């Protein structure tokens, strides 16, 4: 209660977000200019972004205001506007800084995003999510503002000079393979989750029906989870290549020690644990009285499963799918070591060449994908939860 009244006086999270943003905007380099790849660069502050500097100040002020706004509604509106605004302004500020600094430079000169800009982005995220889960949901339910921000970022590319930023140039160079790698990433992670569900849900169901199976299934999936993904990948290469060599038909299907197959097998095994476990827990947690009533009223085992047990377990099963998806989007990057082609290639090539922009080009989409999938599957889980058992 006392905590609540304190919260009504000021919003600490928004305050922290504003301070973080402020620090990023003042104390850290906004962009870095390198005349070519070999020469050390010079750092530049937000002042090089012209009017966008003032826009940034204004939005930080708005975030501070939101922290002390009298009503929850006003607070919510102000902090959302500040967070979304900061992202849009940041895109234009980077574009402005890049195009200003590149005037008179040779074509090999690069302007890359400095730590200050990243910190501003972080600050914006903190401000946006101030107010906790409730606000987060509110923020994500509305499609209008995110679309506007996206439009602002895209227009910064087209008209605002954002395409002069090194990250964008890196993207332009690799545009064609980027989209292929992104598609490969999605396909592999998606296939892993799909296979995980195809095997995991029935396994979880089986575990609820048979005590012995339960021990084995939950034990094995637990062990898989503790094996580092890279090691699992390595462990799979040997048997799979042996299998592929021994059975030419399977090799034609793509079962080789190297390529998508071992990656997919590893990803599927990784996806199994949350899916099996959540299916098992979801089904096991169905009130036995409800199952008893259903059977006593004359439902067959199948009807009981389809009409009572699965609908009641669905929220937890969906939660398992969501966990598996987010997990797989991340560890799919590692499958490049077995020869799969996806965003991981950019990351590890970038690491090898010491090229931060290349790393970012691989890592940023992975992060964005993970967040988008997380949000989308949460929303879907919510829709699929039967009304009577919603919180």
């Amino acid at each position: 209660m006392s905590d609540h009244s304190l919260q009504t006086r000021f919003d600490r999270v928004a305050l922290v977000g504003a301070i973080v943003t402020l620090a990023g905007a003042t104390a850290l380099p906004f962009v870095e200019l390198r005349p070519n790849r070999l020469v050390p660069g010079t750092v530049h502050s937000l002042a090089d972004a012209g009017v966008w500097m003032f826009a940034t100040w204004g939005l930080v002020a708005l975030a501070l205001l939101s922290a002390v706004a009298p009503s929850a509604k006003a607070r919510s509106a102000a902090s959302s506007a500040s967070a979304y605004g900061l992202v849009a302004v940041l895109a234009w500020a980077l574009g402005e800084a890049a195009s200003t600094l590149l005037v008179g430079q040779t074509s090999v000169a690069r302007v890359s995003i400095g730590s200050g800009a990243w910190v501003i982005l972080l600050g914006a995220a903190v401000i946006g999510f101030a107010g906790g889960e409730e606000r987060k949901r509110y923020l994500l339910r509305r499609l209008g503002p995110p679309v506007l921000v996206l439009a602002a970022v895209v227009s910064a590319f087209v008209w605002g000079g954002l395409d002069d930023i090194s990250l964008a140039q890196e993207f332009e160079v690799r545009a064609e393979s980027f989209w292929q790698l992104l598609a490969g990433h999605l396909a592999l992670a998606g296939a892993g989750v799909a296979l995980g569900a195809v095997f995991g849900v029935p396994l979880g169901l089986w575990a609820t029906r048979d005590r012995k199976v339960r021990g084995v299934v939950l034990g094995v999936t637990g062990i898989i989870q503790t094996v580092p993904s890279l090691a699992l990948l390595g462990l799979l290469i040997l048997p799979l290549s042996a299998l592929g060599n021994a059975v030419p038909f399977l090799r034609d299907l793509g079962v080789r020690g190297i390529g998508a197959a071992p990656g997919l097998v590893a990803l599927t095994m990784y996806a199994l644990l949350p899916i099996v476990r959540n299916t098992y827990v979801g089904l096991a947690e169905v009130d036995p009285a409800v199952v008893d009533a259903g059977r006593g009223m004359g439902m067959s085992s199948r009807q009981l499963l389809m009409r009572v047990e699965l609908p009641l377990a669905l929220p937890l099963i969906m939660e398992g799918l969501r966990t598996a998806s987010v997990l797989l989007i991340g560890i799919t990057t590692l499958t490049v070591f077995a020869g799969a082609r996806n965003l991981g290639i950019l990351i590890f090539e970038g690491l090898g060449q010491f090229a931060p922009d290349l790393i970012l080009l691989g890592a940023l989409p992975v992060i964005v994908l993970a967040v988008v999938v997380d949000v989308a599957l949460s929303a879907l889980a919510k829709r699929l939860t039967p009304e009577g058992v919603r919180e």
Partner: protein
Amino acid sequence: MIRLEGVTRRYGDELAVDDLSLEVAEGEVCVLIGPSGCGKTTTLRMINRLIEPSGGSIMVNGRNVMSMRPEELRRGLGYVIQSIGLFPHLSVERNIGVVPHLLGWDKQRMAERARELLHLVGLDPEVYLGKYPRQLSGGEAQRVGVARALAADPPVLLMDEPFGAVDPLNRERLQAEFARIQRELHKTVLFVTHDIDEAIRLADKVAIMRDGRLQQFASPEEVLNHPANKFVHDFVGADRALKRLVRVRVEDVMRSPAIVQEGSEELAFRVAAGRRRFVYVIDAAGKLVGWMDTADLEPDMDPAEALTRVDPAQASVRSDASLRDALSRMLGLGFRAIAVTDDKCRLVGEVTFAAVEEAMTEGDEHITNIAEEDAG
């Protein structure tokens, strides 16, 4: 009709139900009662084959349950369990519609039936049809549980401690409603409880079990007046006399009281000349207004001053209440008689303490004998 013959259920070396035979006639309520673990639930669940008997035969409506498909059998038997077990993801309407749906009824018929049943169990369909189980109180959920069991109008109902999970006040209300519904529907009911008062109140026949064996199978009066052995005697309890009152309805022992209409209180003088000391006063519609103690009347006073006005809901009992209700009301108010009213608060009679006493002592002779036998 339900008939069990020599039914046995074994768990390892233990006999949960041991050579049990009993018959519930059509339209009767048989209450199965006994201490925890005596095999009541096991017996009930063998009838709908949630548990397979180890021996003996079970007939429902002339058919051996073992010859029927379990699902088909169960759809024809209403089943209420203690923990209610409403489906949390289904609305009240769809919970009630579960068995009709399994039987392939059309939507319209299911919707009508749900309304009808909610009415029957005393819940307003407009309010409750769309609710979900988590939005119901314990008593409301129990009512929905009963409505759900009745949905496909099964001739036989199996109820396992259906009112076990509600507070005593609500339980009595639910029992009264169950009795009313049963008077209307005449189902064949096997009802499990471990509450002896509930058994005596609702049963046509009581089956008392202990360690899987039937101890006595008889009418409540018989069980109260002639307990078959010491176990039954002790189980029924020392307040047997009070329990007997539960079986007697007020309307069966009430007498007609002295009545005057409001405004004509002076008539009470004349009544006072007769034997009755208390005179009830009613209004033009026959509703109870209060009473006068004729001992208070002075020859030259306004008789209306001697009128004690009362709230009929507080100071009377309904004609379909039990004598025990009447007695506890009398004791609560400190009277030696109490007015009896109908559902519109109209005065219909009076029950005296003497009448209660008489009902209590009936059959006591035999009880004394058993108690002496036990002691000896």
